[in-house]
Each structure stands twice: as structure tokens, then as C-alpha cells.
């Protein structure tokens, strides 16, 4: 018997497989399953746009409806990737317009998107529904106007932390009056003011609108108007939360917020005038997510808010919350899964707030479901890290940034090796780790020994020698993304673990000790890796073998060397038959 089930049955079974991981697995079972699966895969996720190319995508998956692409390496968020490096979505859009006219969704992260791309999307996909751009750049509000004007069936326009050239707010007026399908609009990252009447009419004719995140330019006085038009909102982001104090504005706001019975998620709150804060207290007990990370609200007000949020699962906040505020979180937010504390004044060495390691220890003790932490602070100790690890072995993501590079345990002046070691030893399901402070090769030995589920690791100003890198590359079985800056790691560990790199998505190393010659060797030895040397200081064709490279980005690929590199990027080992230097 060659077939146990008819194709239709298998296809039906496959339709229940939603994750890319599961679909990848079934396609490896046998050739017929591979064939069947590829014809019915609707959603594709490409974690590194240069790992494949449009042709490879199209050849394998002819019926794609939704695509997600990521471009630049993560460290691009911190200005470590020079402008012009790459990540252009243009060629992808051109090919997809040609081959996938029924495409419905495009989600991009850290990619360069031009206005022309947005126009092509608007005009090329008749049934286009979802556009999500996270940390993207390269486009202006003209591109948004093209989307608004052309996408008749748009459901989602989600712009998060994008750098948009803001020519005017007029783009919003391009949504036609017949357009009523909007479900999500996130324009928080835009600067210029949109026509309020256009916004008002858009909200009024969008009965399915569940997510609305306004930009800073929408005044507080207008919020109640919008909320009254959309009481069905589930997620809402305010604009600037400031106005002259007026009882009329205040009471309208109170009424409007209480009218939103389904509201679970709040954000925005730029330029807060504290007198207006109580206006949203009525929704606090229903909130599952609260993002106050752009709000300059100080402690007593902040504590008052969080102490009412009994159902909070995600909290993003500035360090104005201080240890006292975090104690309040620990007491109140028993359902908390994720905490992110950002620095209010990251570039000043002296503390401007009373936030220490104690706040984090407190939350780790009081919040049993806490899984994900991002915490910026100015001091840390091994004993605090050990407490956190023992309190919360269920942590899956732990990112700690001590502002001063190489800062030791502030109590003992020792490195923080033991503390982070305790984290990886106790938190057996840890998938993501970012470390800071004074760290020796020891911590990497702990990581290599214990962090078996670790998927992504970020290291800065740490380690003593190649041994550190070797521990990580040889020990972390699940490691897919590794990013390193300013560490004394060199050629030995990299070359000794070359084959490991093929099992990973990518490795970034900047301001380390990897020599140009080692990069060449690696590129020559490993044809399935792109070993990109990024160096703006030197001419990449006259650099000497023993010189350390400025930046290095290595990723596995089936697409070969990319064709859009600027002159400060060179892929090693591929062109060396022409350039033996």
C-alpha cells in the first residue's frame, strides 16, 4: 500500500497544524508528505531574509497567504549596524506581487521598506488584510497614504517603533468613506498630527476596531470622543496625556473609559499630567497589559495605579516605579507573566531613582507566574541573582542590563558569574538570556553546562578568552542566535566550532578579536554560511590577515552571497578566487 490515507484526508489533517515548526516536521516524513504540505502551507515565517531568497520561497510554497520576514540583526536596534547594510524588502515585494496575487498578510521586522514597496503592496494585492511593520524604516507618510487609499479590505495597520519620514498627517484622510473593515490601527510611532475629523470618522465607521493606538499628537481633550465611538476597544493607546486641568474634560474621560467594558490593554501616556490619571482607574482591574514605559509618572502615582491592577499579566514601565512600586506589583499582580523596567535616564551614571536589585527580587518572590524579565538597573549582586533564580525557576526569558559595563557585584566586588550561573542552573526552560556586569569565562562554563534550552544569548563586555566562546558554542545545544560585543573572543573558538554555526540562525560579533584571516578561512570552509565582514574604517580589499575585523555577521543560507551589499560589507570566502590577498 503506497497511501494509507487519500490526499484530501492528509490535507485536512495538516490544516490543523498551525506552527511552522510542526509543518516543517511533517514535511520531513517522506516525499509525498513534503509535496502535500508545501501545496497547502499558507503562512511562512523567514527569520533571516538572507537565509533564502524569493525564488526559493516561491518554488517551494505556491499558495502563500501570509508572510513574515526579519531583516537586520537585533543589534541594529542599538545603532551597531551601519545604515545601508541591507534588509531591503523591495525584491520580495516585486516577486510576491507577481506570484501571490492573493497574498493577505505581510509582517516585517527590521527591514527597509520604501514608499514604492508600500505602493506595490497597495496596488498589487486585492485581498490584502494585514500590514505589520516593526522597527522598520525607509518609508514616509506618502507610503501610508498609498496603503490607505488602495487596500479596500485592510484589517490591520500596525506600525511599531518604525522610523517614518513624517511629511504630514494627511495620509489618514486617504481611507475611503466606504472603508469599514479596520480592526487594528497602531500609529503610535508617528509624529505629525492627523486630521482629527478624519480619525473620528474612521473610528466611527469601523465597528470591528479592537485595537487603536494613537500617536502623541492626538490631544487628551479629544480622547473621550474617540472612546465613545469605539466602546468595543480591547487595546487602546492614548496620545499625549496632558491638558489644562478642566472638570469637563476630566469627567468626560472618566465616563468614556468606564464605557469600555472590554478594555484590557493600555499604552501611550506621553507627557502625563497626574491630575488626569484617576480618569482611567475604572479599567485598571480589568487590564492584562499596561505599557507606561513612555510615561513620566513618578512613584506615588505609579504605585497607586499598579496596586489596582490585580489581573495584570504584562507590565512595561520606567524605573520611576522604584523598589517601592515593584513591592506593590509583587503584592498585587499575582498573575504577572512579564515585567519590563526601562531606564529613565540611561546615560547618567548616578542613580536618579531608588530602583535597585531589590525591586526585581521582590517581584520574583511575589509573582509565581513570572516568566519574562527585562530589567535595567545600576547595581546587582550574586545573592540577588541567586534569590531570583531560586524563586523563579520557571523563567524563560531573563534580560538584565546593569548600566555600567563590567560592573561587579556591588556588595562583594566579585564577578557576577555565580549569580548568572544560578539563573541557568535553576531555570531549566530558559530560552533567552542577556547578561551584563563583570563576567569571566566562568559564567560561560556554567552556561555551556546548564543552558540546554537556550535559544538566544546576548553578551557584552564579558569574558577573558576564547574559552568563554568555546563553552557556549560547544555546550548550548539549542542555541540559534548569538550576539556578542566588546568581548576578547578571537579566532580559535570560532574556527573550532565552525560546524555549530550551521545549526544556528546567526552569530554577531563586534569589537572582538576575530581576525580578517580567520573570517576568510571560515568563509572558505563553510559554503553554507555567509561570513559577512562589516568594516567602515578600512578598505575591505586591502585589510591585512591579522587585523581584527570591526564587525562580523555570520548566518546560514541557501541563497549564497547576497547581491545588495554596500561597500563596507564583504562576504568572505566566496570571491577569493579573484582576490588572493
Amino acid at each position, binding site marked *: 500500500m503506497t497511501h494509507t490515507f487519500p490526499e484530501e484526508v492528509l490535507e485536512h489533517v495538516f490544516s490543523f497544524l498551525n506552527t511552522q515548526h510542526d509543518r516543517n516536521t511533517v514535511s520531513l516524513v517522506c516525499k509525498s508528505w513534503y509535496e502535500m504540505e508545501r501545496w497547502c502551507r499558507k503562512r511562512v515565517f523567514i527569520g533571516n531574509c538572507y537565509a533564502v531568497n524569493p525564488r526559493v520561497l516561491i518554488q517551494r510554497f505556491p499558495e502563500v497567504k501570509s508572510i513574515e520576514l526579519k531583516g537586520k540583526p537585533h543589534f541594529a536596534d542599538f545603532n551597531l549596524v551601519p545604515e545601508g547594510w541591507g534588509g531591503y524588502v523591495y525584491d520580495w515585494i516585486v516577486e510576491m506581487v507577481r506570484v501571490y496575487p492573493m497574498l493577505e498578510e505581510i509582517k516585517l521586522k527590521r527591514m527597509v521598506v520604501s514608499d514604492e514597496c508600500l505602493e506595490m503592496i497597495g496596488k498589487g494585492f486585492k485581498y490584502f488584510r494585514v500590514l505589520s511593520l516593526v522597527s522598520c524604516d525607509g518609508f514616509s507618510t506618502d507610503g501610508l497614504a498609498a496603503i490607505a487609499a488602495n487596500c479596500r479590505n485592510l484589517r490591520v495597520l500596525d506600525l511599531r517603533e*518604525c522610523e517614518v*519620514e513624517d511629511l504630514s498627517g494627511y495620509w489618514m484622510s486617504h481611507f475611503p468613506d466606504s472603508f469599514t473593515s479596520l480592526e487594528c490601527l497602531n500609529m503610535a510611532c508617528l509624529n505629525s498630527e492627523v486630521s482629527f475629523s478624519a480619525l473620528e470618522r474612521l473610528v466611527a465607521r469601523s465597528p470591528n476596531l479592537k485595537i487603536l493606538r494613537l500617536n502623541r499628537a492626538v490631544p487628551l481633550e479629544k480622547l473621550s470622543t474617540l472612546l465613545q465611538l469605539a466602546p468595543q476597544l480591547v487595546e487602546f493607546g492614548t496620545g499625549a496625556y496632558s491638558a489644562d486641568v478642566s472638570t469637563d474634560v476630566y469627567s468626560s474621560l472618566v465616563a468614556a473609559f468606564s464605557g469600555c467594558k472590554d478594555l484590557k490593554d493600555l499604552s501611550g501616556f506621553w507627557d502625563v499630567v497626574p491630575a488626569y490619571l484617576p480618569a482611567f482607574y475604572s479599567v485598571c482591574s480589568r487590564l492584562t497589559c499596561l505599557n507606561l514605559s513612555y510615561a513620566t509618572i513618578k512613584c506615588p502615582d505609579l504605585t497607586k495605579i499598579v496596586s489596582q491592577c490585580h489581573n495584570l499579566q504584562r507590565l512595561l514601565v520606567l524605573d520611576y516605579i522604584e523598589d517601592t512600586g515593584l513591592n506593590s506589583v509583587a503584592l498585587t499582580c499575582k498573575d504577572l507573566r512579564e515585567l519590563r523596567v526601562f531606564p529613565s535616564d540611561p546615560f547618567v551614571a548616578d542613580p536618579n531613582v531608588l530602583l535597585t536589585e531589590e525591586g526585581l527580587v521582590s517581584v520574583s518572590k511575589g509573582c509565581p507566574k513570572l516568566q519574562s524579565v527585562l530589567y535595567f538597573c545600576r547595581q546587582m549582586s550574586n545573592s540577588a541573582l541567586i534569590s531570583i533564580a531560586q524563586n523563579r525557576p520557571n523563567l524563560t526569558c531573563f534580560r538584565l542590563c546593569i548600566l555600567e559595563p563590567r560592573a561587579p557585584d556591588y556588595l562583594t566586588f566579585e564577578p557576577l558569574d555565580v549569580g548568572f550561573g544560578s539563573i541557568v542552573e535553576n531555570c531549566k526552560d530558559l530560552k533567552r538570556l542577556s547578561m551584563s556586569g563583570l563576567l569571566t569565562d566562568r559564567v560561560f562554563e556554567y552556561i555551556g553546562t546548564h543552558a540546554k534550552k537556550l535559544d538566544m544569548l546576548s553578551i557584552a563586555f564579558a569574558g577573558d578568552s576564547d574559552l568563554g566562546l568555546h563553552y557556549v558554542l560547544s555546550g548550548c545545544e539549542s542555541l540559534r542566535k548569538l550576539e556578542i560585543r566588546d568581548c576578547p573572543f578571537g579566532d580559535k573558538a570560532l574556527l573550532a566550532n565552525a560546524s555549530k554555526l550551521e545549526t544556528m540562525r546567526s552569530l554577531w560579533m563586534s569589537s572582538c578579536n576575530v581576525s580578517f584571516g580567520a573570517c576568510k578561512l571560515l568563509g572558505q570552509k563553510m559554503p553554507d554560511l555567509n561570513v559577512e565582514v562589516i568594516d567602515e574604517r578600512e578598505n575591505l580589499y586591502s585589510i591585512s590577515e591579522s587585523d581584527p575585523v570591526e564587525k562580523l555577521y555570520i548566518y546560514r543560507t541557501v541563497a549564497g552571497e547576497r547581491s545588495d551589499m554596500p561597500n563596507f560589507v564583504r562576504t568572505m570566502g566566496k570571491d577569493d578566487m579573484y582576490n588572493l590577498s
Partner: protein
Amino acid sequence: METEGFGLEITELRLGLPSGGGGERNEKTRMFLDIVGDGSDRNNEMAVGWPPVCSYRKRTITKLYVKVSMDGAPFLRKIDINSFRGYSDFVMALENLFGLGDTSEYTPIYEDKDGDWMLVGDVPWR
């Protein structure tokens, strides 16, 4: 990167009408901008990209206040340079602050630390 120190290099910015405009006005309406700053040499001490605060957030939270004074205006105004994405934004905000509107034409110029008059817009905004 070399454009990091933009705010700290400029000591004084002045906005004035284009020179030789008509000949009827002997005095240009001038706007003076002085960096108020935040006291610390922050960007000079930290390594690039450290601490790892993403550039979107960095732009939103850091403030670089500039005091703006204009000839004939009764009081000074303060404006945060970091809240603008580029020169066009910035110039538009200055127009709005002083109610200049479309009728008034001017060329923004500033005086750098060498005492030379420089045309605003040559140095990359960042």
C-alpha cells in the same frame, strides 16, 4: 559615529531673514537658540549602542532643550530638539511657536564655536 555629538558642537543657533532681502528692512527679525542641555557629557562617555536602549526609545526619552528667543517677542520659548525627526520638522515647529506662518521667509542660520555663521541643514540631523 561621528554624528553623535551634533547637539554639543553647536553653541548658538540663530534664525534670521535672508540677507539682502528687499533693502527696505534694516533689521532682520532674529531668533536665537541656546542649548540648555542636561548638564552631563553623556554621549561622549558611553560606548556606541550602550546601554542597549533601542534608538526609537532613545529618541523619545532623551531631551535636548534649546532656548529660543526672537527679536521683538516678549518672552522666550523652550523647544526639545530630540523630539524632531529632521530639519523640516524642527523648522516647522519654530514657525508654529512664533506664529510665523507662510508669509514670512527666513533662512535658518547658526553660529558655531568658531564664530562662523553656518547654514542650518548641512550637518546630518542626528
